[in-house]
């Protein structure tokens, strides 16, 4: 395997840590004979409006006392039918729909979509564009993981890491805004390139962010990783074996926490990811705690990737120099009739795609993000399908939560790192 296991300097409770430091013991469950109660189960409705469901997710939970007997997730509260809407838009217009699905990592979605369409059309983007998209995607991977980290720590009962994480997220928001003018709905990519080249000094801002992030991660690490309450609430909770995780279709950190080193960046490299030096962290227990560790390490690896990508960012044009794909410059449009006609035709007619289909997947922040695009020779997609990683990850929650306590269900849900905009689409 190209990926390597990252060693964590954290022992499993109640053992000693590898460094010899004692790991604080979590609270021991009170062991007393329980009185005989009736066998009637109770139904509890979690959500759709509840902060611990991380969106408009509704979980119908059947409880026996405090133990979860079954979970039935109900979706669709945020269903916007993006796939249907996409069939009525030209290939470039669909870009605006992609960032509204995963508003926690919009640039990854922007990039994944255009990468699929470019593969369908057989377009090779410029070197600068490739590295630029790697920077965007790794930045948004951290962006998304930071939100997960904040909400995760709130679910476990710690408020401080949430503030630390959001302080860093704010910097990415500002970078988004400087790059695209929008903080969440970035729509930064176009077929054959980007909406615009990086603004002046933007890469310096990214570098600054990447420089400062590890200190924040270390602080949060100190607060959470060896925290007794955190360990007690997450170790051994929601564990899933490697075979089951693969069979359930889990991807991303949820799969790697079970010990399967499947990372699209390593297994099916795109944009020269094979030439970057980074490691894929994997866990060995597949429980909530391992998912936490894997995501924490992924952020550090993304920082490494950011530095390498910033170092190698070449000059040159951002967009492909092909008049059938790229728009002429605005200055030309305003001064030159032919350029204006050219601009008008590209915008109104769109770019035709061959009558084929294409599947392209990237390693999103939530898991394997697949884009399946079907063309018919015209400028609009016949079908545009997203393989939603958190949709598939969430489908394992009945299996993960069964037999655990109600409070554990909240942690299991948090550990899956879902975003409802993408689940419901």
């Amino acid at each position, binding site marked *: 395997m190209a990926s390597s296991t990252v060693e964590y300097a954290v022992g499993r409770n109640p053992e000693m840590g590898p460094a010899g430091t004692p790991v604080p013991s979590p609270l021991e469950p009170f062991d007393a004979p329980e009185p005989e109660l009736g066998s009637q189960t109770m139904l509890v409705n979690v959500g759709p409006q509840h902060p611990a469901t991380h969106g408009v997710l509704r979980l119908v939970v059947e409880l026996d006392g405090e133990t979860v007997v079954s979970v039935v997730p109900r979706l669709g509260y945020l269903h916007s039918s993006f796939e249907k809407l996409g069939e009525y838009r030209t290939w470039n217009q669909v870009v605006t729909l992609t960032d509204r699905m995963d508003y926690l990592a919009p640039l990854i979605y922007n990039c994944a979509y255009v990468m699929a369409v470019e593969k369908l059309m057989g377009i090779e983007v410029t070197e600068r564009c490739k590295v630029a998209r790697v920077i965007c995607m790794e930045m948004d991977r951290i962006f998304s993981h930071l939100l997960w980290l904040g909400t995760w720590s709130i679910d476990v009962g710690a408020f401080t890491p949430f503030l630390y994480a959001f302080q860093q997220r704010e910097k990415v928001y500002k970078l988004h805004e400087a790059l695209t003018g929008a903080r969440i709905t970035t729509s930064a990519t176009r077929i054959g390139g980007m909406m615009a080249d990086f603004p002046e000094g933007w890469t310096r801002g990214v570098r600054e962010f990447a420089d400062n992030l590890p200190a924040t991660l270390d602080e949060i690490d100190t607060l959470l990783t060896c925290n007794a309450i955190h360990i007690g609430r997450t170790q051994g909770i929601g564990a899933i074996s490697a075979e089951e995780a693969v069979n359930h279709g889990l991807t991303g950190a949820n799969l790697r926490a079970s010990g399967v080193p499947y990372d699209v960046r390593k297994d099916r490299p795109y944009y020269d990811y094979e030439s970057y030096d980074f490691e894929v962290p994997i866990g060995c227990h597949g429980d909530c705690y391992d998912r936490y560790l894997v995501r924490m390490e992924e952020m550090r690896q993304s920082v490494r990737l950011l530095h390498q990508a910033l170092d190698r960012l070449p000059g040159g044009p951002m967009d492909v120099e092909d008049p059938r794909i790229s728009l002429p410059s605005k200055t030309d449009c305003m001064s030159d009739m032919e350029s204006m006609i050219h601009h008008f035709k590209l915008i109104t007619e769109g770019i035709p795609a061959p009558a084929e289909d294409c599947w392209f997947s990237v390693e999103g922040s939530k898991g394997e993000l*697949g884009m399946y695009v079907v063309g018919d020779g015209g400028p609009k997609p016949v079908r545009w399908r997203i393989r939603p990683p958190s949709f*598939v990850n969430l489908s394992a929650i009945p299996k993960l939560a069964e037999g655990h306590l109600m409070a554990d269900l909240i942690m299991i849900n948090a550990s899956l790192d879902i975003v409802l905009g993408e689940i419901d689409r």
Partner: protein
Amino acid sequence: MPDKGSVASAPDFSTVASGPVRSRAEVPEREGPASVPPGNPTVTALWEQFPDGVLRNRVCAGDEDVVYIDPERVTEILGWLHETAGQQYDHLADVTAVDYGGGRPIEVVYQLWSIPHRAALRVKCELPLDALEIDSVTGIWVGADWLEREVYDLFGVTFQGHPDLRRILMPENYAEGHPLRKDFPLRGRFSRAEQTRRALTQDPEDYYMPGEIGERTPQVVGSGADGGDDAAGSGAGVGTEGGDDGL
């Protein structure tokens, strides 16, 4: 959409497919094992193992192997791909469907990935519009559960043997049909007022009564919801079936 040869108004792609845009010759789709030289050895193995189950294969977007198989034998062939030592397609990345419109069959698409062998394969089954039924692969990959429910919900393809075939994204009492079908209008079949009325009259308590969890039978969508034929003209007429108890 009509066939690629007969697109009248759309720009002609053949004029575009030259220059920097990589030209891709029309892929022949002939019957027989040697029709298209595949990049993935699994395709050859499939031809040898299931000479009458595999219908044809093609290569899409440069390097993606697509195999069309007999819908009747989907669990047999996909099970073989999952279990056989040399194949081990253990990761079912996606199950989806494509409706090309114009009466063409609906394609059910299985996107497979083998984690040990790092190989991708796309398997397609073509279902004619009057027989939208196919066996469920939940027995092979548990993860197919929600993906198949979504295809059922949005395309109306019934998966035989699925443990819990209900709508997943649309409400359970949704009676306008299957939204991702090409004959489904973008704004739905009912008027906006009727859609609002239906949304308000649905009773969420219906869906989690004690004892119903886990032993629900697949919900049969009303006959008016099955496609374009009869539901298309039923603007306000169908609205009465939802009952007037809510408003």
